[in-house]
């Protein structure tokens, strides 16, 4: 059976080989591939800074780099990872590639705008990298005033411009998902037949479209203050630095959901596919995505409990913050219930899904500690917070991203990667991640503040554990690059549906045609009906 499979002659990767055919493409799949390459570069640049950070923190003294350099390291790590890797990651790569086929469309609504968003991303990326090469920026990725407006003498303005530009890329991606999901679904593809991946991206897009403009205007205000000497946030000119924090977190808290919601969508697909069983409580999982997106906008000031907001406001925001916990919990419970009486197998994507569930659960539960007022006063801005959001952003979003990439890689390239090495890498990532970040919860409760270049001696053992774990984690991230590239040429041919999955995208050939479908498909099945899935077991370890 294996011998019969071969890569089809005609597919989107063969539709022109010139550079021009890539740079001027309007094909959402090619744009997704270019995004994949771009964000991978950014991921490894951001990762280098993380290496620098963990290296410095291996000893309590500030001996590896100077304090200024260290401050630039964590700032650039945050800026690049948040704005140039995590926010575009799943939406711009997997979402771009998969949303049109999942809803049965030939392309996104505005292909040219889709390409434009990639160019905008590149421009924003280049401006930020320029700022980095020119000397870097040391304000922390949060850009709190008045330090960013008046205190720092590093390259705040170019970095802010880079982020501002990249924001438009994010808005255009979101806009380009909302429109086709509303207007371009195939016949029979009702809202409640949409894959949960699409629901998650719909919710994500809402956040991108509603939140990003607020950070854009905040950056504009910071820009005029720093560049022209306007007074808006500067207390020396009657301004209020806390207002900056309010506006900043109005976007930047929901931005966490831009990162995690798509990963939740991926996990729903993976859990269902690899237990060959419809998702438990489809509509609850679908609506919990929307609930997370909307509730995400009413909790921002929990980042500011000790920043000088009123006691009353702190209580209101603490109360509201717990509202996000419920839909998140509902998702985890539904995945667990989905496994019940399934037919479960543990290919690499499922390993990532399992890892995701564990790490996301820990990340979410530690969020409860931070939403609780009395505890947050102690934990705010300590390593507990650092560990918590890395559990969500790395343990959650990146595990989801890698899981999705391993799941759809055969669809994107038509070939399988090495199952052995991918399992090794999945396990290394999971183990390495926990060794890196779990000690940070402990050291955080001990009181170690974040963004510290040096720290008290008694905290060294935990920090060394963290640095050691980061080595394993880093190797786990490098491995996929190798076997993915190897698979492009030598991988086994995958066929259209190597996993026996149920979504519309698996009805396409692998790699798909430029126009995705030969004919507009008509959807007659409910989602995740494995009884009707095109089962082609082509894949063996």
């Amino acid at each position, binding site marked *: 059976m294996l011998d019969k499979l071969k890569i089809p002659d005609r597919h989107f990767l063969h539709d022109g080989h010139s550079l021009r055919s890539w740079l001027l493409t309007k094909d959402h799949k090619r744009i997704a591939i270019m995004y994949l390459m771009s964000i991978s570069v950014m991921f490894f640049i951001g990762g280098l800074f993380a290496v620098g950070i963990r290296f410095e923190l291996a000893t309590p003294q500030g001996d590896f780099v100077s304090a200024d350099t260290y*401050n630039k390291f964590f700032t650039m790590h945050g800026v690049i990872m948040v704005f140039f890797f995590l926010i575009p990651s799943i939406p711009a790569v997997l979402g771009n590639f998969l949303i049109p086929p999942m809803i049965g469309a030939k392309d996104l609504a505005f292909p040219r705008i889709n390409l434009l968003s990639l160019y905008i991303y590149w421009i924003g990326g280049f401006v930020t990298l320029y700022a980095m090469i020119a000397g870097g920026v040391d304000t922390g990725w949060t850009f709190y005033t008045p330090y960013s407006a008046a205190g720092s003498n590093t390259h705040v303005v170019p970095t802010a411009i880079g982020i501002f530009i990249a924001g438009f890329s994010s808005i255009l991606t979101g806009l380009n998902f909302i429109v086709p999901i509303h207007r371009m679904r195939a016949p029979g593809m009702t809202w409640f037949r949409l894959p949960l991946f699409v629901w998650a991206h719909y919710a994500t897009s809402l956040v991108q479209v509603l939140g990003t403009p607020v950070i854009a205007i905040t950056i504009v205000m910071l820009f005029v203050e720093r560049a022209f000497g306007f007074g808006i946030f500067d207390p020396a000119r009657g301004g209020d630095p806390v207002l900056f924090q309010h506006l900043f977190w109005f976007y930047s808290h929901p931005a966490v959901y831009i990162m995690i919601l798509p990963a939740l969508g991926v996990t729903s697909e993976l859990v269902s596919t690899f237990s060959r069983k419809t998702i438990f409580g489809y509509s609850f999982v679908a609506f919990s995505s929307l609930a997370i997106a909307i509730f995400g906008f009413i909790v921002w000031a929990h980042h500011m409990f000790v920043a000088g907001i009123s006691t009353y406001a702190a209580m209101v925001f603490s109360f509201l913050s717990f509202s996000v916990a419920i839909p998140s919990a509902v998702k985890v419970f539904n995945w667990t219930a989905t496994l019940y009486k399934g037919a479960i197998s543990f290919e690499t994507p499922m390993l990532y899904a399992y890892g995701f569930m564990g790490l996301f659960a820990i990340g979410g539960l530690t969020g409860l500690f931070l939403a609780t007022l009395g505890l947050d006063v102690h934990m705010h801005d300590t390593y507990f917070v650092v560990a918590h959001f890395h559990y969500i952003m790395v343990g959650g979003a990146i595990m989801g991203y890698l899981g999705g990439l391993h799941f759809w890689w055969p669809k994107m390239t038509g070939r399988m990667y090495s199952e052995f090495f991918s399992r090794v890498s999945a396990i290394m990532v999971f183990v390495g991640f926990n060794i890196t970040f779990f000690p940070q919860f402990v050291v955080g409760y001990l009181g170690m503040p974040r963004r510290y270049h040096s720290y008290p001696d008694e905290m060294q053992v935990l920090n060394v554990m963290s640095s050691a774990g980061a080595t394993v984690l880093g190797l786990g991230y490098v491995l996929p690059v190798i076997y993915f590239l190897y698979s492009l040429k030598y991988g086994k041919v995958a066929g259209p549906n190597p996993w026996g999955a149920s979504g519309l995208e698996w009805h396409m050939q692998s790699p798909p045609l430029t126009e995705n479908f030969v004919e507009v498909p008509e959807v007659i099945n409910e989602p995740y009906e494995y009884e009707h899935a095109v089962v082609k077991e082509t894949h063996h370890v």
Partner: protein
Amino acid sequence: MTIFGIPVFPEQASTFAKDVDALYYFIFAVSAFFALTVAVSVIYFGLRYRKRHEGEIGARIEGSLSLELLWSVIPTLIAMVMFGWGASVFYHLRRPPDDAMHIYAVGKQWMWKFQHLEGQREINELHIPAGRPVKITISSEDVLHSLYFPAFRTKMDAIPGRYTELWFEATTPGTYHIFCTEYCGTNHAGMIGSVTVLEPAQYQAWLQGGGETGTLAQRGARLFDSLACNSCHLENGQGRGPSLKDIVGKTVTLQDENTVVVDDAYLRESILTSQAKQVKGFQPLMPTFQGLISEENLLALIEHVKSLSPQATTAAPAAPPASADATAGKPPEKK
């Protein structure tokens, strides 16, 4: 608490520490319960329901409304308990008792300056007595900082141009960390210090050791003379400015008929920009001290004014009578 000599849990050195840690244990227990439940279930299901043969598919189970309700409502209720408990601890953290001893802290790149009412000034070190509530009023001279006492489980941001406060009651003598937790530039990690909790008697001894500059209020009284405040603010109320005797805590009527309670913030504002809230019945003659007076001198002046209202400021130590006997008839300095 240490494991193999490695500290894994911070020392408890304030009355809050027990409350905060109890809350921590509670949420930890709840989290551990849910995390383990999920972990055990997914691992068990993963083993029990492994795919046995090619083409096998799972049972078709669409969902269950009662289960969904169960696992929405129960977490909601637990979350409400967490919120309520956390809020009550927080409320306590934010309400300093009236008899709290008062200390000022000013953050500056990259040091903490502490000022005792008795006059002692410390940098990156703080001495306080055990068993007595201490209230710290915090401000900043440049950018945001955050004053953090891990052993006391409390912190508060220092915001330039504004006062914030925190309080605690230390229980165990010893020396503990002070950190700055709001990123403030190059040497953020160097903006650390230590707080030394002393037995009350030792604290008194420590105070005696370093009091050569007089109490804060006494310094304020000298400033009150040297800046010629005393030429207008006569104690008998006959001066060109209102009498400051017994004014703290009172409500005064302003020129625009609004009223304001005289507190630290109002005193500060009035010294810096007196016309902003001009008391009714007085001409706006007072010079503006904005930018002309250091933050520390401002604190000293405020403390002096407060010492003129002994019944309103019980926390203040018995201040010596201010030498405001208008003998020094200097004319108001023109600024």
